[in-house]
C-alpha cells in the first residue's frame, strides 16, 4: 500500500507570493494533519482535518489555511509568504481524530524555500 504522498517535493517562492501544498493520505485514513518543521527543530502542529471538517488548529496566523476533500486528500495554503515560512511542511494521516492513541503516519514532506 502507498504511504502518505505529498507534492511537490520542493518549492521556491518569493516573499508575498502564495503557495499550495498537497497531501494524499494512506488509503482508509480519514484524518489529515499538517505540521511545519523549521530546520533544526521538531515539527509544529498547524491543522488537523477529519471528514472535511477542521478539528484543530495550532498557533499559526490566518495566512495559513487548509481544506480536506471528499476523497480525504488535503491542501495547505499559505498566503503572503514571509522568509520565516521557509520550512519542511509535513502531512500526516491517521484513521480517525476523536480517539486517543491516534497513530499518525508522515509523508516525506514539501520543502518550501522563500526568497
Amino acid at each position, binding site marked *: 500500500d502507498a504511504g*502518505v504522498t505529498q507534492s511537490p517535493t520542493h518549492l521556491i517562492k518569493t516573499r508575498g507570493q502564495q503557495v499550495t501544498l498537497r497531501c494524499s493520505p494512506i488509503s482508509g485514513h480519514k484524518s489529515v494533519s499538517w505540521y511545519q518543521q523549521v530546520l533544526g527543530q521538531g515539527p*509544529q502542529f498547524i491543522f488537523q482535518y477529519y471528514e472535511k471538517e477542521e478539528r484543530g488548529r495550532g498557533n499559526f496566523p490566518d495566512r495559513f489555511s487548509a481544506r480536506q476533500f471528499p476523497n480525504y486528500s488535503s491542501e495547505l495554503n499559505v498566503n503572503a509568504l514571509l522568509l520565516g515560512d521557509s520550512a519542511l511542511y509535513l502531512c500526516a494521516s491517521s484513521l480517525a481524530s476523536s480517539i486517543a492513541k491516534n497513530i499518525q503516519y508522515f509523508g516525506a514532506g514539501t520543502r518550501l524555500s522563500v526568497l
Partner: protein
Amino acid sequence: QKEVEQDPGPLSVPEGAIVSLNCTYSNSAFQYFMWYRQYSRKGPELLMYTYSSGNKEDGRFTAQVDKSSKYISLFIRDSQPSDSATYLCAPEEYGGYNKLIFGAGTRLAVHP
C-alpha cells in the same frame, strides 16, 4: 519553557554501543508517548509508542516513560550505522482531537 524538552545533540557513538535518548515534558495530561526517527530530508517514521508509565520493547529498541518525573527515554542496544538519524520524542495531546507535541530531536551518529 517548551512543553517538550529534548537535547539536540549531536550524539556520536561507536557501533555496538547502547544509546540513551531522553526527553522531559511539562503537561501531566499526556497519556501516549511516541518516538519517531527521521532520516535526513525524509519525513518522521514511527518507531514505537508507549501508554502511560512503563516500558515497551521492540527488538533493539526500548521505550520508557516515568510519568511521576515527566521523563521519556528511548534506549537502542547494539547500535548500527543505519541507526544514524534524528530521534524525535512526541507526546500526544488529546482534547477532542489529537496533536503531537514534538521535541527538537536528538541527532545521533553511529560510526563503524
